[in-house]
């Protein structure tokens, strides 16, 4: 039963991933990416990693992609602004490399699939649950986890600093329409 679902979601994720790079319309690409993320989350759920699946949908499909689509809708590119497909040397090399990789994987698939390492009983009962993931994140991997969140904070501060006009510049060059101070008060 779960094998059938695996094949369904695996096919769906591969097909939608291909659609991401083959659609001309940027919004369609983004929606296909949402479908890919969703079906990968389904694969996580089939493996028993329910927490990871829920987070994948909540964070990537539900928040990150919404912002992607927000930007796409704001820019609203017309047909003529989209890039034309044309052959290039790099493209040919890429196709050749991809074909080689595909053939290599197809040939070696039988030898590559080794059995998974045996899990300890405590890992099995907790595997993929909120409790199990929480124990790992706030136990064994606490410092990497906190450092990652600090890195994200730095990124947020950097993005805000880059996007907002610097206070020095605003103070030196008043805007032509009566200054910004008046505008802000309104």
């Amino acid at each position, binding site marked *: 039963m779960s094998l059938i679902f695996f094949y369904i979601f695996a096919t769906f994720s591969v097909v939608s991933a291909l659609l991401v790079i083959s659609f001309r319309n940027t919004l369609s690409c983004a929606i296909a990416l949402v479908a890919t993320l969703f079906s990968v989350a389904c694969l996580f759920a089939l493996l028993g990693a329910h927490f990871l699946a829920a987070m994948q949908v909540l964070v990537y499909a539900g928040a990150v992609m919404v912002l992607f689509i927000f930007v796409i809708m704001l820019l609203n590119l017309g047909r003529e602004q989209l890039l034309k497909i044309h052959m290039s040397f790099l493209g040919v090399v890429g196709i050749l490399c991809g074909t080689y990789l595909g053939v290599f994987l197809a040939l070696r698939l039988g030898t590559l699939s080794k059995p998974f390492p045996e899990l300890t009983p405590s890992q099995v009962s907790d595997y993929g649950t*909120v409790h199990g993931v929480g124990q790992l994140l706030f136990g064994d991997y606490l410092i990497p986890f906190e450092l990652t969140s600090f890195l994200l904070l730095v990124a947020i501060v950097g993005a805000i600093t880059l996007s907002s006009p610097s206070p020095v510049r605003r103070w030196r060059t008043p805007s032509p329409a009566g200054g910004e101070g008046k505008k802000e008060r309104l």
Partner: protein
Amino acid sequence: MEILTSLIKAILIPVVVLNFIPLLIWMERKGAAYFQDRRGPNRANIFGVRLGGMIHNLADVIKLITKEEFFPAGANRFYFVLAPFIVLFIYIITTAVIPFADELKVGDFVMSFRVADLNVGVLYIFSMASLAVYGIMLAGWSSNNKYSLLGGLRASSQMISYEITLSLSVVSLFMVAGSVDLNEIVRNQTANIFSWNIIRQPLAFLLFLVASFAETNRTPFDLPEGESELVAGYHVEYSSMKFALFFMGEYAAIVVASAVIVSLFLGGWQVPFLATTTLIDNTPLLLNLFGKVFSIFSIFAGLFLITKFKKKKYRDARDYEVLTLGIPAILVGVGAGLFFFTHYLHDLPAWAGPVFTATLQILVFLTKIFLFCFFFIWVRWTLPRFRYDQLMSFGWKGMLPLALFNIFVTGIFLLVKP
């Protein structure tokens, strides 16, 4: 057996949500009418039976189905059709993890009253509900209309902003209950009203309430629709059943939001002051008591309806509507009264206790949801709409710090209290 019960649950629970929709539409119209000092819908009838305006919904359905399906010029047809389906579908599947009653145990047979027993619990609801915004965004974009597009943009930014507060305000509940499972959170609140989360976590309740108003796009956060500025926002160009799906989606969202709030903060299926074990132990006593109360209530309700009868009030079949409802109510009440006041039920079979308990808990849960749905309607016809910049600054500068503060305080309390 297990497949059969899960199949029945998987069909029944969405049907419950769908049945709430016409009820809520009726309640919204009547509620709006009485808030504005008028009578509301009272003309549509079938052979004179109006059911207080309920029949108006049927007329609405016929109207919506038979209307022309309209596609605006330059619209992206695929997304235009897909969008309303996403909205309704997402809200209906979020009900999968909401428990409607405590586990039913008769001998070896154990059944839980929800479709899926997921380990992630509430997180599933959040992750699914976060996808609903795609329906609104796609509707706004694919309509090829600038008002729709603005509505879609507003919806996406608003939902992203308030989702953070929504998720953070629940973290303190997880800390108190020690679980993310909705059934565990309900059980942790116990039947005592004073240990429900609305008493233990009042700030979290307020934050969650406001954020869920924003997530369901209801007034005072209905900026994506914003009739006065955006005509009707993201569904300007929709007609016929595609519009009806958006309409249904909005009410399904209210039902789901009420169910989640009731489960998280108002004790879920807990009957006030009557725990599951108490209910099972005292089933005969309670059953007889409820029978007597029901018969008396039914007689009085029937009498009340009959007193409303006045000949030649409308001069048609509508005059007799109160009688057709009132007389059966009195007869049912008299019948039940004759039975319950002369017999005392005892020696009930073993399954009677658990089944009675589960039924009572489901009824209590549905009543709580219904009352909370009324709260949604009440707020809509009472408060004016926010301005867009107010909405954003309120979400990011007001609600988010408060949610973080609440988690901090809860953490300190849990640390100090053993």
